């Protein structure tokens, strides 16, 4: 599932279509397709986060030229669906954009307060 802003924009899809190369888009499609069939998500592909990000987790892979890419999100208690809150890079232990983690935390909080919404993650649609 993708997080959708209260104004209806899908920031995850925007990141996917605008920021990722064709190779990286294909990688994430295969990655998500594979994870969908996995009963448990484990390292090195998935890592549960702690501290301020408790309850969140990140899907981790390397994109073009080895740049570390992340999808931050959470598993919903019902149906165990993974909701992607934000896509970003993580180079030198720093997220890009720098506010990626705080945005993810804030978006999760918004969803818990019924602000914003989620939609099916869709490969072919573009904004």
């Amino acid at each position: 599932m993708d997080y959708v802003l209260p104004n209806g924009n899908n920031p995850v899809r925007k990141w996917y279509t605008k920021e990722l190369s064709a190779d990286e888009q294909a990688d994430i499609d295969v990655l998500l397709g594979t994870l969908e069939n996995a009963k448990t998500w484990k390292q090195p592909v998935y890592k549960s986060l702690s501290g301020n990000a408790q309850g969140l987790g990140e899907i981790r892979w390397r994109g073009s030229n080895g740049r570390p890419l992340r999808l931050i999100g959470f598993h919903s208690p019902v149906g165990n669906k993974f909701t992607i809150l934000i896509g970003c890079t993580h180079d030198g232990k720093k997220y890009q954009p720098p506010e990626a983690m705080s945005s993810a935390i804030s978006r999760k909080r918004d969803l818990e307060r019924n602000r914003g919404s989620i939609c099916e993650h869709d490969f072919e649609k573009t904004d």
Partner: protein
Amino acid sequence: MSTTSKKLIEKLKASKKYRESFVGSQVRVGIPFQIRALRKQLEWSQSRLAEEASMNQPTISAMEGAGYDGFTLSTLRKLAAAFDVGLIVRFAPFGDLVHWTDHFSPDTFTVPRAVDDPVLNVYEPWYASPIRTQPLQQSESLPTNVTAIRPASSSYQNSGHDEYADRKLEDILFQETGTKKYTETRSAGTAQ
């Protein structure tokens, strides 16, 4: 057809560039999952796999990460040799790749090593090879509907195999080849 398949098919139909990338993703993303699953199947550490494949542990660690872009045929052949499994490299329709992506699960993906490969064990009982990594369980019993047989090869009979391994082969022969080949084998060997 699953939702994942439908979505992938739409993208593959829409763009040749995406089709090219999708082929690469099968290697960059698909292979790391397979390597990790096979290593876990054997209960090997990354260091053990590195040793078996004449690589180093950090390389194995990198190869198990999704998006690793350094695979070569030579590397994959080394890994196949280390795992003692086959490696299929062939051109294929995109539909095959979609099907694989939609059905592959890292939880259930296993490949029998040569020594455990039922097809390789049908005609020649070479399973007593020292490369076996998964000891047979002495507690397992032969199904009651299988009649015991013993191959006639003198070299086999003198190879120091154990009685349980004999029975395990019989089990495989019966399950994999059915009555016809079972009968042929029995006629070529010495029935008990």
